[in-house]
């Protein structure tokens, strides 16, 4: 960072029109001779001033803590060290070997992956179908559907979780009443506790997660679908393509980048579901409801082993980095990062 850069770190400053004379030649290419006007000389420093606040902010909240996470995961940072008495001992890979050797950790990983997969498949599948359906309906129906989606979307996560907790309440929940009415089996359903069996409990949690994620998927996919050129679709069907053929060879290639983006984001989000489980389990999730995020949390804040928590978080990051790399490659391929 040069001195000129740091000056602009505060509020956005009016950008000087005068070409800045600096020693920096960012691209390494000297603007020799009259290059076409696109490469303006005054642009050399300006973009760096523009991105500086973003870089500082990201470094402070992401990069630095991430480095700290790595460091902490090689230490043993308990409560005592946190409050400043005593040195934090270095333990090398001990945290990692402890975690990786713990069958409970692998159970949590398995649970997280299965839960994420089911949520993503359901969200993307149902979301895409609804978006396709939106193309086929009358304008007023589309408006009604959009309003419903936005109503669901705008529901804060914690509010949605409260509603689903209420719906699935064992004594006063609507789900139990409806099931009793429909099946006529009151003994079976009235007072049924959905969270005694983690499979059933995760069923309710999945319902909440998928319901909450669908609006974003539908609205994004619908926006992508409206970008598909109508003439191409019509030409294809005139040429005798079936509805599926049109979709497969005309529609899908256009919407695929958006689909990939949304699906990848869903993977990340659903891998890290926290609040939904947290609130549905009344702020005290049982061990069989712990996904990686909750597991890391409870290690760090309940067992006050921040290093264990950090190591688990770091392993989670490494697991997700595969998804991140795939996502980046997709973006580069589609020219989003040019």
């Amino acid at each position, binding site marked *: 960072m040069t001195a000129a850069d740091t000056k602009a770190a505060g509020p956005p400053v009016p950008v000087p029109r005068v070409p800045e004379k600096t020693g920096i030649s960012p691209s390494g290419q000297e603007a020799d001779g009259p290059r076409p006007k*696109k490469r303006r000389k005054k642009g050399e420093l300006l973009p760096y001033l523009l991105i500086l606040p973003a870089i500082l902010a990201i470094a402070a909240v992401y990069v630095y803590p991430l480095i700290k996470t790595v460091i902490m995961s090689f230490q043993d940072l308990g409560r005592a060290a946190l409050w400043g008495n005593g040195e934090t001992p270095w333990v090398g890979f001990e945290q990692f070997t402890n975690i990786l050797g713990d069958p409970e950790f692998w159970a949590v990983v398995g649970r997280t992956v299965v839960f994420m997969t089911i949520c993503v498949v359901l969200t993307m599948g149902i979301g895409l179908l609804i978006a396709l359906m939106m193309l086929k309906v*009358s304008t007023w129906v589309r408006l009604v559907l959009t309003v419903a989606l936005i109503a669901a979307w705008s529901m804060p996560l914690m509010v949605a979780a409260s509603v689903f907790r209420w719906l699935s309440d064992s004594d*006063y929940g609507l789900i139990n009443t409806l099931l009793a009415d429909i099946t006529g089996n009151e003994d079976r359903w009235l007072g049924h506790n959905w969270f005694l069996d983690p499979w059933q409990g995760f069923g309710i949690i999945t319902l909440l997660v998928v319901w909450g994620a669908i609006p974003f998927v539908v609205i994004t996919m619908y926006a992508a679908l409206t970008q598909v050129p109508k003439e191409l679709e019509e030409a294809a069907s005139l040429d005798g393509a079936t509805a599926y053929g049109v979709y497969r060879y005309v529609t899908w290639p256009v919407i695929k980048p958006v689909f990939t983006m949304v699906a990848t984001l869903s993977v990340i989000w659903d891998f890290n579901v926290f609040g939904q489980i947290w609130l549905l389990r009344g702020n005290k999730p049982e061990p069989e409801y712990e996904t990686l995020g909750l597991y890391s949390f409870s290690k760090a804040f309940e067992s006050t082993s921040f290093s264990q928590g950090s190591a688990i978080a770091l392993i989670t990051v490494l697991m997700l980095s595969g998804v991140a790399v795939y996502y980046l490659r997709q973006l580069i391929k589609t020219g989003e990062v040019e």
Partner: protein
Amino acid sequence: MSASTPTTNAPAQVLRPDRKRNRLGYNILALVTAGLMAFPVYWLIVSSLRPNHEIRSYDQTLWPSSLTFDNFARAVKQDNFATAIQSSLIVSVTAVLGGMIIATLAALAIGRFRFFGRKALMMVMILVQMLPPTAMLIPIYLQLNALGGIDEYWGLIVVYLVSTLPFATIMIRGFVINIPVELEESAMVDGCTRMGAFRRVIFPLLAPGLAAASIFALVNAWNEYLFAYILINDNSKYTLNVWLMTFTTERGTDYGALMAASTLISIPVVIFFMIIQGKMATGLTSGAVKG
């Protein structure tokens, strides 16, 4: 965003009868879907207006027998309601405003200039989005603790601001590159300064993008729970989402009041969505027209 897409409107009269019947089927299906999606919202509102004896009934009915505001009265009287509103407002609004300014600057740089490190910056932005919040939670907590940022609004604001920054930047960049450089250049030829060109030409065209990005930022900040729960321990500084927990005690949950409180919390978000939605539609459809 639906009303403004003319794709299915015009050719309605030339549809053959079988396609008309098809549309009826899709319409019904779509209305059922809308009903299912909206049901939890309906249940939230209805439960908040139901008398308590119906809330605590083993036989739930889809329609309330009578409506009352008792639940709202209990919710509003709950400790720290006013301070929770204040906390949520301060934190969300500041984080969104700050985030939008920083994201717009970065988006302009990425969208308009080719500079060394541009690609790397975009990749970093995309990658940090992939980081799970729980991974960041522990070091951020420890760091804020060291800096005295626990129980302070600024700690939460900084976290929210940065967590929406990458997505907002990438989104606004999408709008930036859709604005032809020539527009800006001709404004400057006509005597605008670069700032003037930005204010008069770029900014108005960017507004839908900013609106859309600010939805995400605001909803994120308003809805965030994990960091708010960990970084704020002082009851009088709880944000609304954390405050919701106070309806659940050892003796059980006051669902009526919880639903009423939840309804109150959702109203600002719904209103914001409704205001911004039209702008978003403009943005999306103008993008669609351009192809």
